[in-house]
C-alpha cells in the first residue's frame, strides 16, 4: 500500500509536525510520501515542519541502513519510511511577490471579464502581495490554486500522477489532505486540490484502489490583533473564523451531497478556543505553537492509512471530541487501530526522548577517550561496544564521526519531541480554564519570556533531583523509574538483523515501556 499526505497552509504544516512525531513513535504506516502546500513558504510553522521532516528522514536513513546502523524491520522506532520532494513545499504561485492581478493577467482581460473580477475582488485584494499567503481570503486562494496547472511535469503533481498510476497498476493508494476550514491557504486548497486529484483519477480512468481522505480543522484557536499599524492590511481576523466556517460547512455540505470527493473525512475543532499569545500576519515570525486538536487530525490521518481501516463505497465523515470536563487526559487520545495504542506509543517516545537526551545521549557523545569509561558496563558492552567494534582496526568506533553524527542528531530530535509535547501541553490551555497534565514538565522545561519566539525552553542539564523525577514524567501511574530503564536495557533481547547503533536505539526505545 502507498500512502500520501498533503498538509495545506500553516495548520496543515502543524498537523504534519504531530504526525511526524507519531510516526517516530511507531504509529504510522510502513511508507508515506509527505508534501506541504503553502504560498507563504517562509511561514514559521511551514519551515519548522520542513526542518523536522528532513531531520526525520536523515535520522531514519542513518538508523535503517542494512550496511551500517540498523534498527531492523521489527522495530517501531522511526517505523514509517517517509519520503518527500527535494523541496517539500509546493507554492501555488511562483515568482517573487506575486499578486492575483498578475496571476490572472488582469490588465489583459476583456472589459467584461475585468468587470466580473472587480465584482469578485476589491482592488486591495487584487494588488495584495501574496508571498506571505492568502491572508485568510479563500476567494483569493481558490483563484490562485485553480489558475495553476496540475501537469505531470510539476514536481508536486507528478507524485499524485504516480500515485494514481500505482493504483491503476493494482496497488492500493491512499492520499490524505489536512488543512483548516478557516483561514486562507488551507480553506482554499482543501477542496480545490482534492477535486483536482479526483479529476486526474477520472482522466486516467482509475476507479479502484485509490482512496482520498481528509482532515478539516474547524476553529480551535484565536488571538488578539494589535490595533496599531494594521490599517489597510489584509490579515486573518479571528472574529471572522466562525462565519467563515459556517459558510465553508454549508459549501462542503452541498459538495458532499452531489459529489463524492473524499472517501473519509475527519472533522475536529475545539471549544473553548485556545488563545494564542501573539499575533503575526505571516512569514517566518508566524510560528504558532503545536496544539492538542492538531494531534487529532494527525491521528485521523494515521487511522486512514491503517491497514485495519477498511474503506467502503460510501463517503464517511468522522468527528471526535474529548471528554466533557476541562481536563485533557490520556484517555482523550484515540487509538490508531486495534493494535496500535496511541497512548502507549507516545508515552514510550516521550520517555525515550527524556532518557536519551539527559542520560544516555551525553554518555555516548564525544571521542572514545571520553566514552571509554563506560566500556566495562554491561549495557555498553552488549549494545554499543560489540556493535560498533571494527575487526579490521580492532577498535570500538562509537566515537567516530559517522556514529557521532547519528548520536547528536538523535539528541536534537529528542529535544524536538520534548519541546513539542511540552509546548502543546502549555499552549493548548494557557489563558483558558482547561487543564492538561499528560506529562509533568516543569522540572525539565520552563516557559520563556514573552518576547521570545520560543515559548518553551528545555533545560540543557538536569541535576540529580530533577532526573529522579523521571518516574513522574508521564501521568499514568506506572511509576517507571530510571533504574527500570537501566535494568530493561541490560536485559532486552537484541533482535535479529539489528546492527550498529540501531541496536542500542531500539532497545532503549523498547525499554521505555513497562
Amino acid at each position, binding site marked *: 500500500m502507498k500512502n500520501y499526505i498533503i498538509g495545506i497552509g500553516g495548520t496543515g504544516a502543524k498537523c504534519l509536525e504531530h504526525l511526524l512525531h507519531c510516526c517516530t513513535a511507531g504509529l504510522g504506516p510502513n511508507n508515506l510520501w509527505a508534501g506541504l502546500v503553502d504560498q507563504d513558504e517562509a511561514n514559521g510553522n511551514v519551515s519548522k515542519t520542513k526542518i523536522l521532516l528532513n531531520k526525520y528522514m536523515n535520522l531514519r536513513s542513518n538508523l535503517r541502513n542494512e550496511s551500517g546502523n540498523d534498527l531492523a524491520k521489527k522495530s517501531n522506532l522511526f517505523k514509517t519510511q517517509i519520503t518527500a520532494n527535494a523541496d517539500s513545499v509546493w507554492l501555488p504561485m511562483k515568482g517573487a511577490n506575486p499578486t492575483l492581478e498578475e496571476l490572472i493577467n488582469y490588465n489583459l482581460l476583456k472589459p467584461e471579464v475585468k468587470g466580473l473580477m472587480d465584482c469578485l475582488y476589491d482592488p486591495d485584494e487584487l494588488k495584495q502581495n501574496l508571498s506571505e499567503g492568502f491572508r485568510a481570503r479563500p476567494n483569493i486562494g481558490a483563484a490562485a490554486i485553480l489558475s495553476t496547472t496540475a501537469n505531470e511535469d510539476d514536481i508536486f503533481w507528478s507524485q499524485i500522477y504516480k500515485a494514481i498510476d500505482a493504483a491503476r497498476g493494482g496497488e492500493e493508494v491512499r492520499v490524505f489532505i489536512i488543512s483548516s476550514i478557516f483561514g486562507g491557504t488551507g480553506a482554499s486548497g482543501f477542496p480545490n486540490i482534492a477535486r483536482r486529484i479526483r479529476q486526474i483519477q477520472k482522466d486516467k480512468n482509475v476507479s479502484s484502489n485509490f482512496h482520498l481522505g481528509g482532515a478539516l480543522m474547524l476553529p480551535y484557536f484565536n488571538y488578539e490583533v494589535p490595533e496599531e499599524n494594521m490599517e489597510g492590511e489584509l490579515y486573518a481576523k479571528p472574529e471572522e473564523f466562525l462565519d467563515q466556517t459556517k459558510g465553508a460547512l454549508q459549501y462542503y455540505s452541498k459538495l458532499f451531497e452531489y459529489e463524492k470527493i473524499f472517501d473519509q473525512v475527519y472533522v475536529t475543532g475545539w471549544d473553548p478556543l485556545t488563545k494564542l499569545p501573539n499575533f503575526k500576519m505571516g512569514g517566518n515570525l508566524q510560528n504558532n505553537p503545536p496544539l492538542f486538536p492538531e494531534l487529532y487530525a494527525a491521528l485521523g490521518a494515521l487511522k486512514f492509512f491503517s491497514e485495519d481501516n477498511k474503506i467502503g463505497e460510501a463517503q464517511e465523515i468522522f468527528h471526535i471530541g474529548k471528554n466533557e470536563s476541562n481536563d485533557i487526559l490520556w484517555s482523550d487520545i484515540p487509538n490508531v487501530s486495534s493494535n496500535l495504542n496511541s497512548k502507549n506509543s507516545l508515552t514510550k517516545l516521550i520517555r525515550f526522548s527524556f532518557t536519551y537526551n539527559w542520560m544516555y545521549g551525553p554518555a555516548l557523545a564525544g571521542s572514545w577517550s571520553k566514552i571509554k569509561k563506560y566500556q566495562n558496563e554491561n549495557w555498553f558492552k552488549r549494545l554499543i*561496544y*560489540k556493535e560498533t567494534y571494527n575487526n579490521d582496526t580492532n577498535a570500538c568506533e562509537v566515537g567516530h564521526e559517522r556514529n557521532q553524527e547519528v548520536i547528536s542528531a538523535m539528541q536534537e530530535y529528542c529535544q524536538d519531541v520534548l519541546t513539542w509535547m511540552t509546548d502543546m501541553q502549555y499552549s493548548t490551555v494557557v489563558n483558558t480554564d482547561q487543564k492538561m497534565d499528560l506529562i509533568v514538565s516543569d522540572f525539565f522545561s520552563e516557559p520563556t519570556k514573552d518576547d521570545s519566539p520560543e515559548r518553551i525552553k528545555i533545560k540543557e542539564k538536569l541535576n540529580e533531583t530533577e532526573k529522579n523525577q523521571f518516574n513522574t514524567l508521564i501521568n499514568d501511574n506506572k511509576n517507571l523509574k530510571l533504574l527500570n530503564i537501566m535494568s530493561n536495557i541490560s536485559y532486552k533481547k537484541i533482535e535479529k538483523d539489528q546492527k550498529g547503533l540501531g541496536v542500542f536505539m531500539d532497545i532503549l526505545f523498547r525499554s521505555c515501556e513497562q
Partner: protein
Amino acid sequence: MNHIIRSIILTLIGLLLLGWISFWFSALNALGPDGESDLLQWYFDNLVQSEEITSSGMPWEDLAVSLYNLLAQMTTALLSTAVVAALIWSIGSHFLNINAPGKAKFYFIYWIIFTGIFMGIVFGLVFWFTKSSTFNAADYLSDGGVFLISAISVIYYFLVYYLGILLGTARFARSSILFGNKLPANNLL
C-alpha cells in the same frame, strides 16, 4: 520480576559450581565415621590433638562421631549462609539505584560491606563450632586443625558465595562487584 527470577537461577547455578562439594562433604560427615576410612585417618592426623587423645585414653571412635557431627553441622550452616547471602545480594542488586551510565561502580562499596558482613558471619560460625562445648570433639581440636578448618572454610565459602553472586548479580550492577565486568556480555549471561 523476570529479571529477578533469572538472577535467582543464575545464582543457584553459580553456587552449585563449588557448592556441591560442601553438600557432599556435609552428607559424608552426617553419615558418621566409616571404619578405617582415609578421611577418618586424615582427621586424626591433621585436625585433632592425637597425642592428647591417646594419652587421655578417650576412645577415638567416640570422638570421631562427635567430630563428624561437628563438621556436618558446621558445613551445613556455612553452606546455608553462603546460599542465603548470595541470593540476598543477587536479588538486592536489582534494587540498587543504578539509574545512569557510570553509576554502578559507586556501588562497589555496598558490595564490600555486604561481603564483609558475610565473611564475618563465616568467621563467627567457624569460631562458634570450633570453640563450642556442644561437641566433645571441639575440645580436642588442635591449633593447626582450627587454623586449617578456618582457612579452608573462609576461602572455600567465599568462593562458593562469589561464584553465586558473580553469575546472579543484576547485569547493570556487575561493575559493583569484583571482576563482575569481566563476564561476557551476551543474551545468556
